[in-house]
């Protein structure tokens, strides 16, 4: 047939180091050697969309204008719950860890108990790091409410954390890469605690795509596994591609050693651990963020 | 018609002919039993109280009366700009339902459009007449601007005109589209005697040549006597037509003629006797 028989697959990701697979695959597509394209055959075209944040990508999936996307765990899970497990599924893992709690290098905070009466910034109320932070504080025996308690958790947008951290408006920050590295480099922060047992990014697909193009979905999940492996094996090359692509997408320069520094804290993996999902959901429930259904049985659907 | 007293002046012969004509010719405007009141913060103002008036085709009617007695309201109702509370207004036998080109009003304030220059203002009404070429329109506009002595100010903005000049532009704008019925509200109030006198002549010429029907409000009794076939006296609170003076002098009339002065004196006297009661109330 003619060109119009090409299947267009719309793929999303954020211009962020924790979405390295997406960024790198996008870079390769841009170079004409698309990672997914090569594995899906000649009749497939991939369009890449870069989202500013999870909810935008989820809206796009609901609106039917996006098929697959790399996305942080929180928005994907929320979207899944909200659609009663009917519209969005995780088809593969992408990255774990990468989050940390940092304090000033010269901070008197040495032990968890020193956080009493202090202010900790998290990126956003109810997001992954916010929930982790609250769960951790509770585990340390603190009483934390949404607007106060023994330790005050102040949700603060990532870009604004730096200013507040520097000016002493907050004493500590619980956030995710690349901001952990930024805080270390620009605001003399020291990592107090690294949050390693946490899902950061995964690859989700719309239910419709899974239904209509099961074969493609399968190949994509497999390709993602391969890509992740390739990234693990070619760190330097991957980082170079990442930096170039991020520059292309955000018009901002990334320092290579900053990327390298952040990279170390992220664990690129395609495994999706049910335990981690259950833990995240339970923490969220404990912190009072989930009210409706939290059935995770259909969340992961490996094609 | 609500007339308490009618005084006839001028030669008997002319009088009976025009009397005849008026009976034969159908009324161009027929106002019957029209009342109009306004609600304001302070109370109700009865601007017109059961006013009736017939105006024949080609007649020139002048309305005279105290300030605030309802003359402008009367014109607005004839024009269809305002609805009477009761009574009917007919033009050419058909009830007036709204304003239109057939009955053009020249308002008491100049009401010129500030977004157009002088020429644009005069052209405005002309553009609404079909069957006029662009050149024709421009010629007509220029003609009337010359008539009112403002050719030099064709391109001026409205706010650059003096009070009298604004009124003259307004006059040109009203005359240019050549309406069948013209309702004029003190069109010469802001003009000096000399300009007025020229315009008396011009208006009479235009009126005669085009057989216009004109209802003309003025405070100048002499002016009324000079221009009108009939002069109607309004009295205020409530606004009513109280007297009617046919003026049967030959045309064109000279504002300074002695005959005319006699008429004017008559009318003024009537006006005063009417007004006296008013004044005692007002003060």
């Amino acid at each position, binding site marked *: 047939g003619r060109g119009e028989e090409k299947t267009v697959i719309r793929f999303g990701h954020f211009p962020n180091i924790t979405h390295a697979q997406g960024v790198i695959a996008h870079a390769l597509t841009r170079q004409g050697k698309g990672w997914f394209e090569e594995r899906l055959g000649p009749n497939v075209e991939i369009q890449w969309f870069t989202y500013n944040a*999870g909810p935008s990508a989820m*809206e796009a999936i609901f*609106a*039917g204008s996006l098929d697959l996307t790399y996305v942080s765990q929180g928005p994907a899970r929320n979207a899944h719950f909200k659609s009663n497990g009917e519209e969005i599924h995780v088809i593969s893992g992408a990255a774990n860890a990468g989050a940390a709690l940092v304090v000033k290098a010269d901070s008197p905070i040495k032990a968890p108990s020193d956080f009493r009466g202090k202010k900790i910034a998290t990126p956003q*109320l*109810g997001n992954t790091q916010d929930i982790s932070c609250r769960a951790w504080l509770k585990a340390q025996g603190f009483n934390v409410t949404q*607007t106060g308690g023994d330790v*005050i958790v*102040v949700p603060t*947008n990532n870009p604004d954390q730096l200013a507040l951290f520097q000016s002493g408006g907050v004493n500590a920050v619980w956030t995710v890469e690349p901001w952990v590295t930024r805080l270390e480099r620009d605001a003399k922060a020291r990592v107090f605690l690294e949050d390693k047992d946490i899902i950061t990014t995964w690859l989700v697909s719309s239910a419709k795509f899974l239904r209509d193009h099961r074969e493609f979905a399968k190949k994509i999940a497999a390709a993602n596994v391969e890509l992740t492996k390739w990234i693990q094996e070619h760190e330097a090359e991957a980082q170079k591609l990442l930096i170039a692509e991020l520059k292309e997408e955000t018009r901002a320069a990334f320092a290579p050693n900053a990327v390298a520094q952040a990279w170390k804290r992220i664990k690129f993996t395609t495994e999706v651990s049910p335990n981690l999902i259950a833990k995240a959901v339970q923490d969220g429930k404990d912190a009072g963020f989930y009210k409706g259904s939290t059935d995770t049985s259909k969340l992961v659907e490996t094609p | 018609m609500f007339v308490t007293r009618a005084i006839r002046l001028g030669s008997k012969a002319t009088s009976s002919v025009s009397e005849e004509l008026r009976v034969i010719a159908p009324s161009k405007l027929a106002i019957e039993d029209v009342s109009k009141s306004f609600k304001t913060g302070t109370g109700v103002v009865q601007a017109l109280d059961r006013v009736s008036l017939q105006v024949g085709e080609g007649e020139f009617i002048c309305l005279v009366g105290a300030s605030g007695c309802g003359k402008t309201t009367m014109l607005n109702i004839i024009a269809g700009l305002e609805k009477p509370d009761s009574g009917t207004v007919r033009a050419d036998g058909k009830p007036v339902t709204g304003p239109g080109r057939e009955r053009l009003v020249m308002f008491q304030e100049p009401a010129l459009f500030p977004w157009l220059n002088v020429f644009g203002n005069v052209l405005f009404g002309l553009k609404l007449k079909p069957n006029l070429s662009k050149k024709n329109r421009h010629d007509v506009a220029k003609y009337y601007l010359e008539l009112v002595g403002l050719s030099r100010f064709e391109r001026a903005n409205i706010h650059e005109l003096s009070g009298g000049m604004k009124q003259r532009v307004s006059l040109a704008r009203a005359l240019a589209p050549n309406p069948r019925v013209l309702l004029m509200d003190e069109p010469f109030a802001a003009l000096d005697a000399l300009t007025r006198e020229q315009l008396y002549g011009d208006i009479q010429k235009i009126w005669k040549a085009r057989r216009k029907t004109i209802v003309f409000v003025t405070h100048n009794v002499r002016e009324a006597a000079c221009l009108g076939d009939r002069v109607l006296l309004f009295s205020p609170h409530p606004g009513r037509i109280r007297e009617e003076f046919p003026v049967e002098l030959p045309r064109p009339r000279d504002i300074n003629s002695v005959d005319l002065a006699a008429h004017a004196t008559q009318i003024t006297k009537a006006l005063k006797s009417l007004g006296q009661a008013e004044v005692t109330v007002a003060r």
Partner: protein
Amino acid sequence: MKRFLLAAAFFAVLLLLWEAAFRARIWSPVLLPSPWQVASYLKNAAVDGTLAKATVITMRRLLAGYLIGLVVGLPLGLLTARWKLFRDTIGTMALGLQTLPSVCWVPLALLWFGQTEAAMLFVVVMGTLWSVVIATETGVRNVPPIYRRAALTMGSKRLHMWFKVILPAALPFIVSGMKQGWAFAWRSLMAAEIFVTILTGFGLGQLLHYGRELSAMDQVIAIMLVIVVIGLLADKIFFSPIETFLHRRWGTSQA
């Protein structure tokens, strides 16, 4: 009465269309919940007090920001209209700054005020102020000069002139500008509530934002409705009576 019925019918039809769109399942029910879902969210939120609390908090911020915007903006607008120097400096700044999205003010607000209500107010004021300045200036510059001249010869000067002549003469413009300023204030506040997180209370902006974060469109649409209704109420309670008064005084709006 007939007017009311017609308008009610119009909005009823909109509601029916919405329900029909929902039933037809053209769009994902997550993105387009049914009116009933939205109503039930509203009911629950009303019952558990979330809505009332958020509305009160937001209204407090909105009114404070808006009033500051007016109180600072009106005099600035007058100055700008009056003196070339102000027009060239503050007026120019106002023209440039009014197009800036609210988010631009967030870093500055945090730097200066930290995570406080003041920071939020700052963002709202910056979002409102310049449009009020510009509307006031435009209003003053469109005042027919005859009023000023008449007042001058009666001995009106300076402050008296501004407050007793120029301002009232420019009122129709200024009220129109205030209405737009109100919309600017709302939109800025919504941005501020999202970007400036503070602990002193959850407003409608946050409810809207978290609704979106959680893909809870019933919540998003419900809050949108609340915002719309507040906008209408503000008009009915505040702007509409002023406008009616002006129209009655000026004798306009008989069209």
